């Protein structure tokens, strides 16, 4: 008899455990309006971008002010700090009003396709010329578009930044 009792209690406890699971999924099925966690991505772009935290690392940008001036002196600290060779700085020599030669950046080349967003260049920059932007939509049709020049054309170093 004990064999049959064991057999029956096995069956009953097994069925019970299955019903416990079904109760949970059933609950989610009925309350699906409250429980769903889907974000409808392209539709919610506006809120998504507004909700991105300030520290989110999307790409490296160089901040320019209204006079089209930036703070990059071309010291190549970021280039040295970068583990992947993402940043290449091309320098040129400007003439200061006093007639002296002064080193300045010609092009700040940034290879987005190599960048791992590790933030080491931002940490290394002594003048806070570059920062991370909150953008994650990087896909392009031509990979050459991923190589960017960060300093705007005609921009120059802000006065007083050494």
């Amino acid at each position, binding site marked *: 008899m004990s064999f049959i009792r064991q057999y029956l209690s096995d069956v009953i*406890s*097994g069925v019970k*455990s*299955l019903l*416990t*699971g079904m*109760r*949970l*999924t059933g609950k989610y099925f009925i309350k699906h309006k409250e429980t769903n*966690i889907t974000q409808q991505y392209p539709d919610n772009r506006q809120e998504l971008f507004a909700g*991105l*935290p300030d*520290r*989110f*690392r999307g790409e490296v940008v160089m901040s320019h002010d209204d006079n089209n001036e930036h703070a990059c002196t071309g010291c190549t600290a970021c280039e040295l*700090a*970068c*583990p992947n060779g993402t940043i290449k700085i091309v320098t040129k020599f400007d003439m200061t009003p006093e007639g002296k030669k002064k080193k300045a950046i010609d092009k700040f080349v940034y290879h987005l396709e190599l960048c*791992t*967003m*590790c*933030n*080491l260049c931002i*940490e290394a920059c002594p003048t806070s010329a570059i920062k*991370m932007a909150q953008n994650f939509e990087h896909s392009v049709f031509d990979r050459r578009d991923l190589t960017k020049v960060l300093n705007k054309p005609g921009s120059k170093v802000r006065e007083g930044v050494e």
Partner: protein
Amino acid sequence: MLQDVIEAGNGDMIVNVGPQHPATHGVLHLVITIHGETIKKVEPHLGYIHRSIEKMCESLTYRQFIYVTSRMDYLSSHINNHACALLTEKALQIEVPERAQYIRVIMDELTRLASHQLWWGAMAMDIGALTPFFLAFREREMINDIMEETCGARLTMNYMVPGGVMFDIHPNFVQKVKEFNAHFKQKIDEYDELLTGNIIFQNRMKGVGVLSKEDAISFGCTGPTARASGVSCDIRKLFPYEVYDKVSFKECMATEGDSFARYVVRLEEMKESMRIIDQLIDNIPEGEIQGKTKAVLKPPKGEFYTRVETARGELGVYVVSEGATTPYRIKFRSPGFSNLSALDHIARGQKLGDLVAMMGTLDLVIPDIDR
């Protein structure tokens, strides 16, 4: 196909599982010999995602190579970074401020929780239940949001720097972590309801893939895999780093060594991680977040070894320094590599369906194995 079977002569069939297979979670390639449904041999072929991180690190400075290690075990990237940061601190004897230590430990435990949640969902998917995956991701998303706010990235954070952490915690951090803990404490019961108690699940897990204590030690298994076999190997307990000696937590152990024990140990570990976070989150001391370091880090000549407990087991970093800015030789002793070596041993004689369950409970992350 028939030709293979005839040539084997005894009805054995060789099946390639992977590198593209739904159950291998990546590009693991297993060549298995089966007789009917019974496994006779499992032979892993690796290297499909081998990037030779060890060679790469030889040309990166001590500040730079930390980011690469996030790409090893991408589910516990914080802990990998932590190991490398600890190594540099040990070599140069850098004092880490207490605030940074607290933040590091909280981040480690959050990472462990996130990793175990993903494991739970993925393992359930391996054995055919698809709903748990979404429950796990619901909670994991909250951790990812916390990480995003404080560290700036969701998966490969690169938040640890030699001497401390990169930024201070976000003002919302404490609040959000508390919210998450309260939420997850309720939801972890659903995990039991949906899967742990389920009779089909228990039958699939119990007595399957038994790894004895001696074998676990001999195969060098660590982490929950070894603890389920009764091997005490929690680095956080044995060789406490940072503030792990100040918090009270239990080393989750089991003795059965089967898939179900590994499952239970991981679930228990999630609860312990929550306990650790509870103890630390209110007591983060004020102060600096980075210790004083030189701009160029040049460890002295010698050999250094650090061990940390990642979500999968013991991660060892062995560095040979020649006094230069880059390591002369670096070796990552990754937990997954050793755990994988036990797969052949525990899978023999089991059914094909169990192989998937075993791989699920060993919690293999392929980039961690291949490095």
